[in-house]
């Protein structure tokens, strides 16, 4: 009797067995994904339509879009939204440009030197947030911080600047710290991507008379575009989700000048126990990130 075979020559039974095995291998990740990503996301969306508060004996009350309406009337949320966009608009381009520049400078150095630079730039990424913020807090300190010490020694300032206590400077300080913790991964990725650029194309372009700038923009840039897209999206998401630095350094102050959506979600949900309101903010943040990521993917695809 002839065996049922598909086009690749495998029997149906074998295909079924391999498919089953494949799904079984996927199952642990799938369970994890459904439990810790999909389920909380769905619950977040559902809860955002309720006046949901902490309390064993309290009942969640359905209020439709009440939380969303309140959100856009809340000046603190609007301020947090503005601060979040400022962080994203400043940090994403700076991280992209700086990491590309550094990677381009170091990727063709001697291997040990490239590794040294990679380690130096990657250190703040693998160092715990608490340790990083403690050091930065010390440097920014109003009374004995090194920044005030240097600026005073150079005669640039006469009185110490309260870096983290002055609304004029606080957000800038947060962005500066964020930059130092954000450039490590893009640099490592760019070094790797630049190292994988097809050298025959580079050589061919050089033989045809292309200068360094033309080689970079016409040959290398096109080949590292997928890495650029990935870095762009990851950096943007990380910037939108800036939280630990703010919680550890300023608690959103002074005068709400460093409130971000993520911090305000934390404050509303965990400090004020207003879960529904906090989740509504989470949904808004999710929509913003999804839309911007979608646009970036679309632009990346059309470029490639």
């Amino acid at each position, binding site marked *: 009797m002839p065996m049922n075979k598909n086009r690749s020559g495998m029997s149906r039974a074998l295909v079924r067995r391999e498919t089953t095995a494949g799904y079984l291998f996927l199952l642990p990740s799938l369970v994890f994904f459904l439990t810790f990503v999909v389920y909380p996301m769905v619950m977040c969306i559902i809860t955002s339509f309720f006046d949901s508060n902490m*309390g064993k004996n309290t009942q969640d009350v359905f209020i439709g879009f009440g939380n969303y309406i309140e959100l856009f009337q809340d000046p603190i949320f609007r301020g947090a939204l503005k601060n979040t966009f400022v962080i994203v608009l400043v940090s994403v381009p700076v991280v992209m440009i700086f990491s590309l520049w550094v990677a381009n400078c170091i990727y063709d150095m001697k291997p040990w030197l490239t590794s040294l630079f990679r380690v130096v730039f990657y250190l703040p990424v693998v160092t715990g947030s608490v340790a990083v913020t403690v050091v930065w807090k010390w440097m*920014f300190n*109003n009374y004995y911080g090194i920044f005030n010490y240097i600026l005073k020694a150079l005669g640039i300032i006469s009185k110490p600047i309260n870096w983290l*206590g002055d*609304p004029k400077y606080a957000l800038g300080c947060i962005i500066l710290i964020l930059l130092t913790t954000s450039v490590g991964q893009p640099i490592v990725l760019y070094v790797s991507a630049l190292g994988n650029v097809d050298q025959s194309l580079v050589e061919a372009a050089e033989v045809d008379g292309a200068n360094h700038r033309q080689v970079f923009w016409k040959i290398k840039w096109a080949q590292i575009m997928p890495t650029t897209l990935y870095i762009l999206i990851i950096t943007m998401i990380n910037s939108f989700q800036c939280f630990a630095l703010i919680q550890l350094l300023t*608690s959103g102050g*002074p*005068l709400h000048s460093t409130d971000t959506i993520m911090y305000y979600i934390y404050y509303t949900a965990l*400090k004020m*126990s207003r879960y529904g309101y906090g989740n509504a903010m989470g949904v808004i943040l999710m929509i913003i990130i999804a839309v911007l990521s979608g646009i970036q993917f679309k632009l990346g695809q059309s470029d490639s």
Partner: protein
Amino acid sequence: MKKFLAIILALCMVASLGVFASAEPAKEITLWTYPIGKWVDAETMDALMADFEAATGIKVTVEYLDYTSGDDQVNTALEGNAAPDLIMEGPERLVMKWGVGGYMADLSDLYEIPEAAGVYDSLKKACQYEGTYYEVPLCMVAHNMAINYDVFEAADALQYIDLENRTWTTENFIKAVDAVYAYTGMPVATVYCGGQGGDQGTRALVNNLYNGTYTNPEHTEYTANSPENVKALELLQSWDAITFDPGIVAGDEIQLFRQGMLNISWCWNASQQTNADNGEPGFTNDGSRILMMNFPSEDGKAELCGGIWGFGVFDNGNPDKVEAAKEFIKYFCYDADEVVKAVRASSFFPVRADVQGVFEGTATEDIMNEYSAIFLPNLGDYYNVIPGWAGQRTEWWNMLQRIGAGGDVQAETNAFVEAANALAAG
């Protein structure tokens, strides 16, 4: 044969799980504690818990919280049905937050024990809500302030202080601070308002200066916008010798005081005075003497903010665990010998008049006796039990930040009271 062996092996593994499950001690409870003296010191805690286990057969697993993220951890655990059996903190959390929220077990029966009669009435009142007790207090303190004695002496500012009673009038306080400011040329103190804990220091300062209050006597409404409080905040706002600093929190202020960069700390208590982490207790890092002080007031009589710490029991639906947790409370709060050890570990004072000699023979005995004689009698109204306490703290910090940035004091205190009263009303 292989299949048979595999099945046997699997059965053995499953059976062993059962054996381990049944080997679990009949009584095992968890305790989460905030940083209350040495109740977060692993060595001290191990010894206390080992004694308790030996006496009762109940094993206690301890987890240490901090004031930055402790509330978040507890709230998350409550929402995830993973709350501890016991928790150690004050009535503002145990009673007014989690007790009123319906998460705590009723501890009224623990107040029927004869030893409970010795607990000060004002503390008993703070540990209940509408007649139900959610906390049994272990220790207490009256928060005070501290000055750098040597700097004040060098600035000839000690003349404005009643050194025997550690008091000063507001008028003399202004003269003393101005003298130190003239001597050092640096801000003498700062009203820290970066958030987190230690708000009792700033509240006590503002309320005492012109004899204001924080809430009404019934603890139902906030009164921070009263003329007395407004006058105090206007004084602080207009004073070059005292700054407002939203860049630091209470812990930073204490550190700056210990480092000699500030000459007054508003956030002091017995535990700070006996702290020997950076040197001899009662001295700054550079060896200057630290003098504990009452807050200044118009008549020189201060009303200090109280701190009460004790145990509450989360009702996790397991009566055995609740009973075991109550055993723990009886052991540490009511046993004649153990309460002494437990209070000593807290670095604070007993909540019962009949518990004596807690610090007898210890290195800190003199400091604690002095504290007990001079500061504890000035313990003021424990108003922390007003509803909406956790939320109003943020409003308080925000108000101080706005005033520090030059905001109109009356308008800002009105805004604080409006927001805080809204929280109190639920």
